[in-house]
């Protein structure tokens, strides 16, 4: 081989390596990470549900469906209310007819009336997206159509979602579904269009008993933050490591 050519190859290799080293020392940021690093870090939305106050009227579900244009009679919903009836034998009887939209006006649970003297406990548990800090749904989206905002809310881009359903499968809470009209993954957004303008979510506004509250975790004077800091609260299914941000007062281990 021509010695000058060998020298050239050697120098080129060494130069290439030298150039690559400092490049690899830099961290590559994804657009989302870059945006998050300069974004708004003063807000982290969180939710408190006081199950002691919920009476199962279903106004929250109604309000949500109307506000967020989820077809009213379709059996899917962004938020719902579950009824728990615990009997003497320790069994839980759980139901949520139409997501609790029309309230729980009948004592029947799946065509079965439980005698009043058999009941030891009965309560309602409203459910909605937990806007997890470590959302499994965002992790599994193959196209990045679902994402987490700087203030902690998980949203879906309807123009980019391919409708594979992987996020629906990945959510341990069953809050996701396909929108019957748009055919894309759909979920509770904490009414992002409202809270980002300083309004309350539709369900919070509709609740006559103050069972639902939304607030900013990063603001120590926010009533929601105060509750989470000072009271005994629990989250749903913490074993999945998703770090849910909907906190429950009056939680029971039988809640699913």
């Amino acid at each position, binding site marked *: 081989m021509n010695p000058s050519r060998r020298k050239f190859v050697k120098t080129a290799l060494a130069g290439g390596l030298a150039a690559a080293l400092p490049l690899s020392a830099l961290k590559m940021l994804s657009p989302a990470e870059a945006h998050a690093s300069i974004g708004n870090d003063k807000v982290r939305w969180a939710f408190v549900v006081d199950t002691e106050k919920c009476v199962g009227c279903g106004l929250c579900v109604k309000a949500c469906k109307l506000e967020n244009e989820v077809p009213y009679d379709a059996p899917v919903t962004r938020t719902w209310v579950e009824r728990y009836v615990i009997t003497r034998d320790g069994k839980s009887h759980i139901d949520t007819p139409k997501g609790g939209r029309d309230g729980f006006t009948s004592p029947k649970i799946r065509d079965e009336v439980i005698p009043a003297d058999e009941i030891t406990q009965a309560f309602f548990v409203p459910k909605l997206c937990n806007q997890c800090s470590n959302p499994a749904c965002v992790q599994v989206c193959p196209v990045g*159509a679902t994402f987490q905002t700087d203030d902690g809310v998980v949203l879906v881009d309807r123009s980019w979602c391919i409708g*594979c359903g*992987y996020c629906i499968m990945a959510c341990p809470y069953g809050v996701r579904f*396909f929108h019957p009209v748009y*055919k894309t993954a759909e979920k509770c957004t904490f009414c992002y269009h409202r809270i980002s303008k300083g309004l309350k979510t539709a369900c919070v506004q509709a609740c006559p008993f103050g069972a639902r509250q939304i607030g900013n975790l990063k603001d120590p004077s926010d009533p929601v933050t105060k509750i989470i800091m000072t009271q005994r609260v629990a989250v749903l299914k913490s074993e999945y490591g998703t770090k849910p941000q909907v906190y429950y007062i009056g939680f029971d281990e039988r809640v699913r």
Partner: protein
Amino acid sequence: MTEQLIVHGLDWTVKDLFVYPNEFIYWSIQIVMYPYMTGLVAGAFVLSSLYHVFGQKDLQGIARFSLVFSLALLPTAMLPLEFHLQHPFRGINVMFTPHFTSAIAAFGIVFSTYAMIVMSEIWFVYRRYFVEQSIALRDQPGFGNQAKRLLYNLLTLGAFDVSEPALAIDKKGVKILAAIGIPVACFLHGYAGFIFGSVKANALWMSPLMPVIFIMSAVVSGIALCMLTYIIIMEYKKLQATLAKGRGDESVKELGGVEMDVITKTSRYLLSFLVAAISLELLDLIFRGYTAMKSWDILRSVMFHDDFINIFILQYGCGNLIPFILLLIPRPSIKRMILALVLVLFGVFMMRWNVVIGGQAFSLSFEGFMHYKMPIIPHSLETYKEGLFGALTVAAAPFLIFWGINKIVPSLQKI
């Protein structure tokens, strides 16, 4: 009421006891077909590689066929996903903005890498044939022949050198590609298992064994399908020879002999992969029962009550045990082989079914169940796509494609 009809999953999900309102069987028959088809692709390729890489001479007869067949199966691994997507035209988004924390995001990349490997390997195997065809067709008159010649000219990619050293390079190319292809094929399928195994919300799916189980059963199904198709084609050839020359003719006997030889030898590989697959599946089952985590109660009631027939009778019994015995009995016959192979294919299909549908048979609340009623007669596009006929379309596609490809690259003649 009209709004209710377009809720995805409503048509085929029957809920029992307490199920969250948004829970339906979102992943239905097409998601059963998807790992089944990718499994067949991977298995067919691994079978051909056993010959090309490890020089398993006994597989020579089936290696070329299974390579071409894996190319025919390739597009059909994507088909069920397209059928399943709510927005099929956006499927390409996976290539535009792959979100790499998702197991599905790698699909486009792994899949196209694999497709390129298979196609290049076929090119190396058939290059000499392309050149020969091009030369043979040179002086043939007629538009059809010239069009064919143009096609073969294009397929040679301009490499007309068929000297000994050039062919030796071809051979080396095949070997290298087949060697790279094995891990890629396993990856292609292993990650299909990862798609399920990594869903922590699903108590039945979440298991680190899932990818390995998927690879093993993929190889089993791939080998079985290759053997079965091989038998059918050889039987057809035998029939043709019998019709032309009579039953006792030497060529008919020869075909029969070759066929039996290839099949018995390949069945040994099938058996060993079958043993591996069953052992892993049983390990997974036993481990779940022994550790008895929170989800075991609901899993047990699904496995031993609702899905008992599907899992223990159809999958393990008919799909594993019976063919295992049939393959082990000495003095194999073609009829018994066909029965065993059909049962093996059915068993792997039932395994996919029990994973995909079985994983959605219980509510995330662990307080209720969902039953899948597969749409048979379609009454809308959705019930066609996610019903029996959609699945049959997917199942029939590789044979149609193979028929087309085999016209250009004959995988069953000695060349």
